């Protein structure tokens, strides 16, 4: 396709992407480099049903003048990124110089909110993604082998975890693993430990969240792989069979190579999705034991004071994290693409 035609061809979606993706990200970037104006505080007296107390409030007129002079707030450069609630560069350097063992350093690092969240986010991404791929492939192969009559129902049932809204799905599981819930009570009976709680221990909470993540995402991998399985050339499979290839060999040397591009696609989507893990942390009330970067953004924007600058910085760091994670996969795809073109 000539470049000119190509440009006209993608112009509508390019415009939409600039309008709905690039511009908002640009605005978030600008916001992350600004902090609120210095607040001009005045002594006041507050009275209410419980009597009068001396208090402090923000001087409206002085603050308004500051705001009108600089509507974006004070320019702060990258200092929000390096502060203690984000990359904590000063604290990390201090921990590095003050500890003499790697475990001591890791302990200090895990006391910083960003790194604690990053640890869970990465663990979640790298445990859930491969298991979703393997499980999705296994379900797809299983369903593909079923008699035609049973396929429709099985596919529908297998897709249910994905159809259920993530928050609702996690809330249902949260109640089931409660000490009074069906799973929690059964586990207590099986282990004979009346104090066993899937919600209290960090390790068990992590495992619960991993299991939920796999349960929720496996249907997506399954449906993509199942569609792919329909396009595996029957002649090649038959030829392999005639050559004496076993069932495993046919899978390993015919089916899987054919499906490789789909696997790459699912890996890409899953890496992106899992790095942004959020709903299960809210649904499982798991913030005591597991937080993620997305949870931080949510937490910054809730409550009585919305911390836009901090949330914007975490958003940019999340985008950066996704970009770093996807780079190896994208490089690989690019190489394959070039090889094919030659």
């Amino acid at each position, binding site marked *: 396709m000539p470049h000119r035609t190509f440009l006209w061809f993608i112009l509508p979606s390019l415009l939409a992407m600039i309008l709905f993706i690039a511009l908002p990200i640009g605005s978030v970037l600008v916001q992350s480099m600004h*902090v*609120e*104006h*210095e*607040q001009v*505080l005045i002594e*006041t*007296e*507050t*009275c*209410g*049903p*419980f*009597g009068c*107390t001396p*208090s*402090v*409030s*923000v001087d*409206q007129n002085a*603050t*308004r003048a500051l705001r009108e002079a600089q509507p974006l707030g*004070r320019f*702060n450069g990258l200092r*929000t990124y390096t*502060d*203690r*609630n984000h990359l904590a560069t000063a604290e990390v350097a201090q921990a590095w110089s003050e500890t003499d063992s790697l475990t001591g350093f890791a302990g200090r690092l895990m*006391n910083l*909110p960003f790194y604690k969240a990053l640890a869970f986010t990465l663990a979640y991404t790298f445990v859930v993604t491969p298991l979703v791929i393997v499980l999705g492939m296994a379900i797809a192969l299983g369903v593909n082998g079923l008699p035609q009559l049973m396929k429709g129902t099985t596919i529908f049932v297998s897709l249910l975890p994905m159809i259920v809204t993530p928050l609702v799905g996690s809330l249902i599981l949260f109640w089931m693993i*409660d*000490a009074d819930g069906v799973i929690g009570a059964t586990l207590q009976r099986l282990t004979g430990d*009346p*104090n066993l*709680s899937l*919600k*209290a221990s*960090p390790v068990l909470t992590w495992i619960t969240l991993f299991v939920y993540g796999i349960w929720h995402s496996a249907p997506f991998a399954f449906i993509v792989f199942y569609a792919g399985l329909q396009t595996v050339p029957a002649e090649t499979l038959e030829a392999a069979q005639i050559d004496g290839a076993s069932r495993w060999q046919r899978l390993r040397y015919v089916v899987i190579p054919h499906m490789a591009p789909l696997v790459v696609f699912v890996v890409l989507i899953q890496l992106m999705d899992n790095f942004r893990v959020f709903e299960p942390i809210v649904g499982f*009330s798991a*913030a*005591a*034991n597991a937080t993620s970067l997305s949870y931080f953004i949510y*937490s910054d*924007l*809730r*409550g*009585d*004071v*919305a*911390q836009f*600058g*901090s949330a914007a910085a975490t958003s940019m760091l999340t985008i950066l994290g996704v970009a770093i994670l996807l780079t190896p996969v994208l490089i690989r795809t690019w190489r394959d693409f070039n090889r094919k073109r030659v």
Partner: protein
Amino acid sequence: MAFLRLSGLTVAAALAGGTAWAGCDLAGGDIRILGNDFAAINAVVDGARACEGDGVSFSANLTTEHRDIQVAALTPNPAEYTSAIVANSSIVPLINAGLIRPLDDLVAEHGAGLNRNQLITIDGQVMAIAFMANAQHLFYRSDILEQAGVAVPTTYEEVLAAAEAIRAAGIMEHPYAMNTKVGWNLAEEFINMYLGMGGSFFEPGTANPAINNDAGVAALEMLAALNAYANPDFLTFDSNATAALWESGQLALATMWGSRAAPILDDEGSTAEITGATMLAGAPTVGGGTTPASTLWWDGFTIAANISDEDAEATFVAFMHGLSADNVAANNDLAVWLAPGYTPGATAGGVFATANAGAAPYPMLPYMGLMHTALGDNLSEFLQGQESAAQALADVEAAYVTAARAQGFVE
């Protein structure tokens, strides 16, 4: 005492001003209300709805997520809502941003039926009208305390002893609970306990934190000691969870919100044995302190700044209808009402006892919300035994200072 005396005045004022609001008499105006979603607020807003019609339009968005949208919703001109129903913590961001108007003129014109103590004034200007009070206090099961042979606790040290006696008697393994869900709830429990220990949150006259001290450590250690008698899931307990545990009969002692008393004591969701033995007491003191380890809260309404005077007047008058003595009397047991028409009932005992014992109001400081968030995010590791109390408090201070710097409160 002042609180109880005022409630006596309440009844007198109700008799005097009961019929002042027979009709709305509004020429027109839009009434758009944003507020929290619980029974007492629903009752007020339903009462205010009577002003709808004859050129007056009425809409209400009552949601538990109201705090997260109120600043954005009141910022544009004209504002999305003409009124935000707030509590003493959530009014602060609206005042900080100058989004609500002084109500002195409206009170002078239409507020004859209000009690003096309903007026929330900041530097002499009325900024909100409070209509109900709330506080966390002790709920106990008289039958179980009797069975274990312990008296009703008045200090948290006695709560620990009572919980131990109940456990030792083999009645319950986890007899106690409080709202300790990580985040806002857990922070609120620390704030209560820390004030009970006589602590203060900031260096005097500044926004610099001052919680990493003996009172802070003692407050945290008391929280840990209490939660040793709670179910191991305690870091997921919000108000709904503790109320459900109570109604299912799994608790003998709990620190819960006064506004939960009515739904717990009604005849739904529990058995007569449990509700019949459920008693309310004031919040306990702690660490030899004399004031209860609890904070006093009010809920009230504000009027947006960025709306026309006509809409503001219509909204104010509609709220006066919602808070009429008749409407308050009809919904008497839903809350501890501050408005005229209220007769304190069985569900109010805990809040009254706590207020009369001199509990402090929740601090209305511009930077208290940031402290609350920092506390909510950083205390769970100590309660799980992963770090020391001093380290947890140091983390809170560091997280708070970082956030307060970005918000312009500290240098």
